[in-house]
C-alpha cells in the first residue's frame, strides 16, 4: 500500500496497484455474495445457543424461548398460506458493498440476454452491447465504445483510490482524487491514452476474473465475521466522503427533450400495461376480502394495506362496492397540500355540520371525540390513500389520526407504500390504531400518487407559475407592474450569466427612479415587501452585505410573461 510521497504524476498512479489489493477487492465482493445465504451462520448460532443452555436455568429458559421464537417465525417458510413472507431478514437487510455505475450497465446487458443464461458473459462483449444502446449522442459509435469502456475501467479502480486517499491524505493526492471524481469529457480526452494503458495493464484481467471465477465458498464462510466488520467500515467509508464517483453525463447531452407531464401521460397511455391479466387476477383475490374487511372494521380493528403497487383502485372499489350506504370520508394522502386540519375540518363541517372554528387541532379532535361518543349512531368510515405521505407522516398528524381511529364508531382503512412507513408508529400509536395488516400487492402503476410529484425528469411546464404571476400583477398598480417588469427584464438580460447574483437594491432603485416609477427608496421598499409577500421575488444578501433581488421563476416562464404583458399593453 505504500506509495512514494512525491509521485504526483498521473502515470505513476497507474503503476502502483498492488496485486494483493486487487485480489482483496475481488475477495470482498465474493464474500458478500456468500454472506447472502445465512444458513451456516444460523447453524452456528444454534450451536452457541445449545452451549449456553447448560449455563444457568433462567438463561437457558430464555434461550429456549428464543429458539421457539425462531422456530415459530420460521414456520412461515413452510406455510403454503404465507406466500410472501418466505424471505429471511438477512436477505433483505444484508450489507453490500456499494457497487459502481459500470455494474449497472453490466447487469443491464446481462439481463438483456435471454433470461436464465448464466453470468459468464465476456466483459468486452457486454461493453459493446451497452454501447449499441440507442442513444443520440454526437460522438461516433466507435469513439463511444472506447469512451465508455474507458470510463468503465476508470470507475472500477475507484475503491482502491478512495481507500488510498483516505488512508494517506496529502496535498498532492488531492489533485488526483479530484481528477478521478470528475471525469468530464475534456479531461477524458486528455487522459485517454493513459487510461487505456491501465485498461491493458492489470485491471481488466482482474476484473474478468472476478466475474468468471468466484473463490470457493466454504473458505470464505469462515471469514464471515471479519468480513462483517469490514463491511461496516466500508459503509462508513462510502458515506463519509463527500465525493461520489459517477459519470458526468447529463440528460441535456442526450439531446433528448424533456417530457412534460401531459406528453408523459399520453405516452404512458399508449404503452400497454404489462401482465394485465395477472394483475387483474391478483386484484380479484384482494377484492374477495372486502366482506372480511368490513366485518373486521366493524369489530373494532382498523385495516392497513401494504405491498407493491397502487392500492388506490382497490380502495376505490371497496368504497363503491361496500360503503355506498354509509357516511364515509376519502382522504388523498398524496395530495401535496393535505393537512390533518383539513381532514378534521371536513369531519366537523361536513359530517357533524358544525359551524365555527377551533383554536387548535387538538381542540377540534376533542370536539369530534365528544360528538362521536355522545351519539353512537353516527358512524364514519375513513379511507386514507397513502397514510405515509409527506404531509401526514409527522408525529403530530399520526397521533391525531390514531386518536381519531381509536373511536369506536370511526372505522379507518388506509394504505402505506413507503418502505419505512411502519417506523412512524410507536407502541402507543400502534395500540390506538389497532391495525390488522393486509398484504395487497397489486403491481398497479402509481398513476395518481405520482402525478402530483414534481418529478425531476419531467419538465415543469410552468403554466401554473405563469398564471399566478399574471393574476397577482393584475391586481397591482401600474407603477408596481413597471417595477416588476424592470426586474424581470434585467434578469432576462443576465440569463446567460451563471453567476448572476440578482439585482442589487441600490441599482434597482436607481433604475426605478430613472423610469419615474418611485420617488423615494421607502416607496420601493414598500412595494418590494408586497412582492415578497406574494412570493414574486426573493431577496438574498451577498457576501458584501448588499441585498440582491431575484425572481424565482425560470427564464422561459419569465419570457412568456413579458410577452403576454406586452400584448396587454
Amino acid at each position, binding site marked *: 500500500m505504500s506509495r512514494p510521497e512525491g509521485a504526483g504524476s498521473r502515470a505513476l498512479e497507474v503503476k502502483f496497484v498492488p496485486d494483493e489489493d486487487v485480489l482483496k477487492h475481488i475477495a470482498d465482493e465474493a464474500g458478500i455474495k456468500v454472506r447472502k445465504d445465512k444458513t451456516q451462520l444460523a447453524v452456528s448460532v444454534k450451536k452457541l445457543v445449545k452451549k449456553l443452555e447448560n449455563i444457568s436455568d433462567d438463561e437457558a429458559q430464555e434461550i429456549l424461548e428464543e429458539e421457539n421464537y425462531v422456530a*415459530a*417465525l420460521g414456520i412461515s417458510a413452510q406455510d403454503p*398460506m404465507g406466500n410472501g413472507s418466505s424471505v429471511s431478514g438477512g436477505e433483505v437487510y444484508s450489507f453490500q458493498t*456499494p457497487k459502481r455505475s459500470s455494474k449497472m450497465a453490466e*447487469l443491464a446487458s446481462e439481463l438483456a440476454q435471454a*433470461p436464465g443464461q448464466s453470468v459468464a458473459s465476456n466483459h468486452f462483449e457486454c461493453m459493446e452491447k451497452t454501447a449499441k444502446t440507442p442513444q443520440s449522442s454526437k460522438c461516433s459509435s466507435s469513439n463511444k465504445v472506447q469512451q465508455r469502456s474507458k470510463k468503465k475501467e476508470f470507475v472500477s479502480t475507484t475503491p482502491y483510490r478512495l481507500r488510498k486517499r483516505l488512508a494517506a491524505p496529502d496535498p498532492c493526492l488531492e489533485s488526483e482524487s479530484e481528477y478521478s471524481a470528475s471525469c468530464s469529457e475534456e479531461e477524458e480526452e486528455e487522459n485517454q491514452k493513459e487510461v487505456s494503458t491501465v485498461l491493458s495493464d492489470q485491471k481488466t484481467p482482474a476484473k474478468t476474473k472476478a466475474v468468471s471465477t468466484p473463490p470457493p465458498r466454504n473458505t470464505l464462510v469462515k471469514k464471515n465475521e471479519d468480513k462483517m466488520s469490514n463491511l461496516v467500515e466500508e459503509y462508513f467509508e462510502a458515506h463519509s466522503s463527500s465525493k461520489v464517483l459517477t459519470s458526468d453525463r447529463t440528460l441535456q447531452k442526450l439531446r433528448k427533450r424533456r417530457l412534460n407531464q401531459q*406528453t408523459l401521460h399520453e405516452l404512458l397511455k399508449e404503452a400497454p400495461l404489462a401482465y394485465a391479466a*395477472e394483475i387483474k387476477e391478483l386484484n380479484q383475490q384482494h377484492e374477495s376480502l372486502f366482506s372480511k374487511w368490513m366485518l373486521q372494521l366493524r369489530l373494532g380493528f382498523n385495516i392497513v394495506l401494504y405491498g407493491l403497487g397502487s392500492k388506490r383502485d382497490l380502495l376505490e372499489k371497496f368504497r363503491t362496492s361496500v360503503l355506498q350506504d354509509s357516511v364515509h370520508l376519502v382522504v388523498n394522502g398524496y395530495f401535496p397540500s393535505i393537512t390533518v386540519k383539513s381532514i378534521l375540518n371536513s369531519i366537523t363541517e361536513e359530517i357533524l355540520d358544525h359551524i365555527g372554528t377551533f383554536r387548535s387541532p387538538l381542540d377540534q379532535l376533542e370536539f369530534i371525540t365528544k360528538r362521536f361518543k355522545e351519539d353512537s349512531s353516527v358512524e364514519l368510515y375513513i379511507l386514507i390513500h397513502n397514510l405515509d405521505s409527506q404531509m401526514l407522516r409527522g408525529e403530530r398528524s399520526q397521533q391525531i389520526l390514531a386518536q381519531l381511529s381509536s373511536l369506536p364508531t370511526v372505522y379507518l382503512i388506509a394504505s402505506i407504500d413507503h418502505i419505512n*412507513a411502519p417506523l412512524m408508529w410507536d407502541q402507543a400509536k*400502534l395500540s390506538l390504531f389497532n391495525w390488522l395488516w393486509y398484504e395487497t400487492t397489486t403491481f398497479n402503476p402509481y398513476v395518481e400518487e405520482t402525478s402530483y410529484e414534481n418529478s425531476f425528469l419531467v419538465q415543469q411546464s410552468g403554466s401554473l407559475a405563469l398564471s399566478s404571476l399574471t393574476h397577482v400583477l393584475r391586481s397591482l398598480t401600474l407603477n408596481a407592474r413597471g417595477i416588476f417588469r424592470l426586474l424581470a427584464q434585467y434578469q432576462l438580460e443576465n440569463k446567460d450569466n451563471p453567476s448572476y447574483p440578482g439585482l442589487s437594491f441600490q441599482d434597482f432603485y436607481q433604475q426605478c427612479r430613472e423610469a419615474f416609477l418611485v420617488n423615494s427608496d421607502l416607496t420601493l421598499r414598500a412595494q418590494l415587501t408586497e412582492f415578497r409577500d406574494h412570493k414574486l421575488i426573493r431577496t438574498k444578501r451577498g457576501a458584501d452585505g448588499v441585498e440582491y433581488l431575484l425572481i424565482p421563476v425560470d427564464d422561459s416562464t419569465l419570457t412568456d410573461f413579458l410577452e403576454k404583458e406586452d400584448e396587454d399593453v
Partner: protein
Amino acid sequence: MSTCSVSKGCFVFKPNPKKRRVSHKKAKDLRKVNEDTEDSELRFLTCQSLWAQIRSETEKIQEDLNKQLFDSLVSFLRRSHSEFQEKTTEWTCRMKSREIPTAALVLGVNVTDHDLTFRNLSEVLQNTVTPYIAFLEAKDCPGIKNLMQKLMGQLMNCNVDVDSLEDEDYVQVSQNRVRCSMTSLVNWYESVTKKTDSETPSKKRTSSSTHWQSPPVVVIFKDMESFTTKVLQDFIVISSQHIHELPLVLIFGIATSPMIIHSLLPHSVSSLLCIELFQSLSCKEHLSTVIDKLLLTTQFPFKLGVKVLQVLINIFLYHDFSVQNFVKGFQLCIVEHFYSQPLSVLCCQLGDAKKRANSLSHDQCENIRRLPSFRRYVECQVSEKQIALLTEDNFLKETMQKLLEDLNAYHENYISVLRCLHVFTSSLPKYPLGKQIRELHCACLENQVWETKEYESSLQLARMLNKSDLETMLQQCVEIFVSSSENEFDKTVKKLKEFLTQFQKLEADAFQERDVSVPSQKELQKKTDLYHLQKTLLELKESRRSKKLTKFEMLRFEVVDYIDSLVRNYLVPADHKTLHEIVYFNTASVLREHLNAAPRIALHTALNNPYSYLKNQALKTDGGGISNKAPDICIVYKLHLECGRLINLVDWLEAFSTVVMAGEGPNADAASSDQVDDVIHARFIRAVSELELLGFIKPSKQKTDHVARLTWGGC
C-alpha cells in the same frame, strides 16, 4: 363523484337520506357479510356473545389484579392529607416543610396497557376518595401554561359532573375568564368545598357519601418520563407554595424505574416531594393469569391451537409485553375462526352444541364428513357403521352428540391433569418442561408429551423427589381434582389419598433406613488410601444397585408411574381428538400476517421476484434473478441496486432501455425507433418516480441529473 382533484384532498360522501336506514342496519350488514356460507348469522351471534364474555372476563381479571395496588393507593391518599382533614393546628407544622405527597406508580414497560389501569384507577378514586382528579399527558403539556390550563379545565369540568345543578354556561364562562394560575385554583377549591359544606346534607349522603369534607386534589401524570423536566419542576415548585391551601396529591405513572424521578428532578425539587413507591403486577404475571383464566378453563368453548398460541406468546414476549395486544390477538383468532370455519357454529356450550348438532343442514353434515379428524374416526369403525355415518344424516347427528360429549369431557380432564402435572414439573430443577403452565400446555398440545425427551428427564427427576415435597404435591393434586367437577376423578382422588396415607405410615421405616446408611459412610471416612477409597466406592455403588428398594422408593415409583399413567390417558394432543377442528383455531399464518406483518419483505419479494405474485411463465427464472420481461419497476429497482450512493440518471435510463429493448424482441428495432424511445423514456420516468414514492431514492442536488439512494444493500 370522483376522488381525484387538484384542489382538494378530502372528500365526504353521505348516503342518500332516503336510503339510509336506522341503526339496526348494523346487524343486518354484518349478516350480509358472510352470507355465502351456512349458519352465518348464528355463527356471528355466537362469536359476538363469546367475545363479550371473554372481554368482560379479561376486564374482571385486570380489576382483580389491580385491586391490591389500588387499595394501597387509596389508603395512601387518605393518609396523605389526614391532617388537612382534621383542620387542627397540627398541620401548621407541615407548612414549613411544604412537601407534596406523591405516589410513584411503577407500571412496567407495556405502556399501552397503562390506559386501562389509569381508567380503573380514576374510577376507584372517584368512588372512594375524591371527585377531583386530573389526568395529564406529556403531549398535552409542552409548557407550564398548557399544563395549568389542562389541569384547571379538567378539575372544573369534574365539578360539573359531581353536582350537575350548576348551569353549564356558567362553567364555560368561568373556565375562559379565570386566569390560569394557582391562586385561582385555590379560590376555586375553597368555593367548591364551602359549597358542599353548606349544601343540604341529604344530597351529600347520596352522591358523595364516601368523600370527606375537603377531599384531596389528585393530579395524575400518566407518562412521567416524557414530560419536560422544566415543566415538571415548575409545577412542583409552584404547587408546593400552595400545599397548605390546596391538599394536592401527585401520582406519577412510571414505565421504567423509580430512579427516573431523581434523574429528572434536581434535589432541590425532589425534596419538595414526599414520595411513596407502588409497584404494579408484572405483565408476565398478568399474562399468566389471563392464559389461566381464558385458555385453561372449560368456561369458554373456543380453544387455541399450539402454533397460534406460540405466535401470540412470542409477540408478547418479544415485541410489546402488552396484555391488551395479546387479548386483541385472541379476539382476532375468534373472529377468524368463526368467519372461516362453517362448523364453528357448534363451538358453544355443550348443551347448545348438542341442540345445534341436531338441526344441522345437509351441507353442514357434509362439512363434518370432510373433516380430517372425522375421517380418521370413520376409518376406525366397522364397515356397516362407516356406511351409515357417511350416508345417513340422522345417524351422523346421533354420533355427533356422543363425540361432542367426548370432546367436552376431554377438555375437562385435560385441564385438571395438566395442572396436576404442572405441580410436579414446576418444582423440578432446571424445569425440563418449563416453569410456566403455558409452556407445559404448549408442549402437551404440540405432540404426545410422554414421547418427548423433556418429559422423560422430568419423570426421572420426579423419581428423586424427597418425601415432604412429594406429599405436598400430592396434596395439591388432590385439591385440583376435588375442585374439578368431573366425577371421573373420584377414583383418582381416592388413589392419591391412599398414597398419602401410605407415606405417613412409612415415617417409621424411613428412620430405620437412614440408620443403616450412616455406618457405611463412617467406614468411608476412616480410610484415606486412594485405592481403598475407590474400591469401597465401587462396592458401595454395587450394593446400592443391587440393594432392594426401600419402601419409600417403591412408593415413590408407584406415585410417579401413576401420574405417568394419568398423563398418558388424559393429555392426548388435541388434534388427535375427533372434531377438534370445531373448537380449535390453528391457522397461525393468518395471525402472523395480520398482527406481525413485514411490509419490507413483501416489497422486497415483489421487486425481486415478481413471479411469486404474477404467475406468468415469462417471469419465471431460475436462481432468484429477474427476467428482462419483468415489470418496469422491478427492472429499474434491480439496476439501481448495482449503484453506489448516487445514481446517474442517464446511465440508468440507458441501462433500462437496453434491458427493455432486449425484452421486447427484435421488432423493437424497427424504423420508428424514435417513437419507441419516447415510450421507454416515459416508462422509465414512471418507474423512477414510483421508486421515489416507495422511498428507495430521492432527488439530489449534489450533481446534475443524479438521484441519491436511500437504502444500503439489498433492500
